[in-house]
């Protein structure tokens, strides 16, 4: 009896400790960013591109990187969705969902999911060299799209598998073709699509390695797909490496901006997911 009670308490304490460790480090990270970043958080940071001498502590901001990151992450997520939704639908509705081929594809995407982003960056770079494209917004979007497709496909795949078989039977029984049924399934999974967008955008906006060679860096906001572009993670990386205290502070301010962008996307997609889950069938 005493042994069972001890065991119960021991593991409960372990769980509490682990939870404290995780939430504690979360607040430490956010706290550090706020503590170091807020003093350098000026309106100029989000409204101006780097001026002359920005990297030795003179005036300017990181608007180039903010816009660049939104372009790259947004472009990659949208492009990725157009590729991933058909793949997820095909695996589940045309390959039967549980056949060996469907499972083989799932394993392939799981492997791709685990590949480090630098590999996608290097791969994207090779493609660019082959086609003679220089580091540019387009190159960045392509490399990041490769990075997010496995995330999108696997998330959407899981979501589609929760659609009741009977809902698909219902449209089939009305004489719908598979594609017409798929369209109803897509409506049904709209809340899940926003979750997938959130995961994909979050990964895309924070990744350095995939854009390092492919997107390049620029102090200007790109006006075409063929111009190089800055991204926030790279801007943070460059500024942190500076010996000037002012510039280092701005790195934390940039990290704060990045965190806020992710926060906005999180809140937005959960609101949209809730909105659209109102009329889905369970």
């Amino acid at each position, binding site marked *: 009896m005493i042994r069972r009670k001890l065991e119960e308490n021991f593991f409960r304490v372990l769980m509490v400790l682990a939870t404290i460790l995780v939430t504690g480090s979360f607040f430490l990270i956010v706290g550090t960013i706020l503590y170091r970043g807020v003093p350098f958080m000026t309106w100029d940071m989000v409204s101006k591109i780097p001026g002359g001498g920005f990297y030795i502590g003179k005036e300017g901001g990181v608007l180039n990187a903010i816009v660049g990151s939104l372009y790259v992450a947004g472009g990659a997520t949208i492009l990725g969705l157009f590729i991933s939704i058909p793949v997820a639908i095909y695996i589940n509705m045309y390959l039967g969902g549980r056949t060996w081929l469907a499972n083989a594809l799932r394993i392939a995407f799981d492997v791709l999911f685990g590949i480090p982003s630098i590999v996608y960056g290097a791969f994207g770079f090779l493609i660019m060299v082959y086609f003679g494209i220089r580091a540019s917004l387009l190159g960045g979007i392509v490399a990041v799209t490769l990075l997010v497709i496995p995330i999108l496909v696997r998330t959407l795949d899981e979501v589609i598998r929760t659609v009741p078989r009977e*809902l698909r*039977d219902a*449209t089939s*029984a*009305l004489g719908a073709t598979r594609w*017409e049924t798929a369209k109803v399934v897509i409506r049904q999974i*709209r809340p899940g699509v926003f979750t997938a967008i959130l995961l994909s955008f979050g990964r895309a906006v924070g990744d350095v390695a995939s854009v390092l060679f492919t997107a390049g860096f620029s102090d200007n906001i790109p006006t075409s797909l063929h111009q190089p572009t800055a991204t926030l993670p790279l801007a943070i990386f460059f500024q942190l490496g500076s010996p000037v205290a002012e510039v280092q502070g701005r790195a934390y301010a940039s990290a704060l901006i990045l965190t806020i962008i992710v926060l906005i996307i999180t809140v937005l997609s959960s609101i949209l997911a809730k909105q659209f889950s*109102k009329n*889905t069938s*369970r």
Partner: protein
Amino acid sequence: MTHNPHISIQHLNVQIGNQEILKDISINIPNKKVVSIIGPSGCGKTTLLKSLNRLFDDTADIKVSGKVLVDGEDIYAPDAEVTHIRKKMGLLSQRPYPLPMSIYDNIAYGPRIHGTRKKSELDEIVETQLKATGLWNEVKDRLNAPATRLSIGQQQRLCLARGLAVEPEIILGDESTSALDPVSTSIIEDLFIKLKEKYTIVLVTHILRQARRVSDYIIFVYMGQIIEFGPTEEVLLNPKQELTREYVKGYIS
């Protein structure tokens, strides 16, 4: 009763993997009658029902042999068009699964995919079918509300109306009242009785009382085979087969 059969099943065998689900089923289902399929769980009732509109086409490792003639056409013939076959039959599943759209769009969905685009025609279809299922007065003021806001019983009637909107000849019910409360159940049962004027109705049911109340004929299925087929009263009150007698008395379930 074999005159003028609407559906004629001839030597139907269904196998999934190595398991025989249905064995040599042959039966004629009469026009504009209600036929109930009864039998213990796992006996193949639902498979028999789904074989009528080829709903298990997507199932892996399935083998079907034999013929199912609907209006004299073999639906398993190589050149049979599956969407055309399914359009002829409305399906009402165990629980209602409204499409993720409004009440109006749920009913308009079928006509739309089959080419009806005119708003006035769709309006008329929606109104007619909602009236046919007794929902019109309950929902006429909120046709654009999501279908999921309706109660389960209303949703099931909506699903019936959705099926009727594509002008089927046959209604298939797969334990269609098993998720419903007693009041909704009796509304659906009354609808079946009313609808047999226009449609041939095939129901799978667990509830003998329901089979007795709504059906003209009963098919008793056991271990993938038809044991007995005949008029409702005869099968339930005076079964010819020992197995049927045992099932009706509640000895096997």
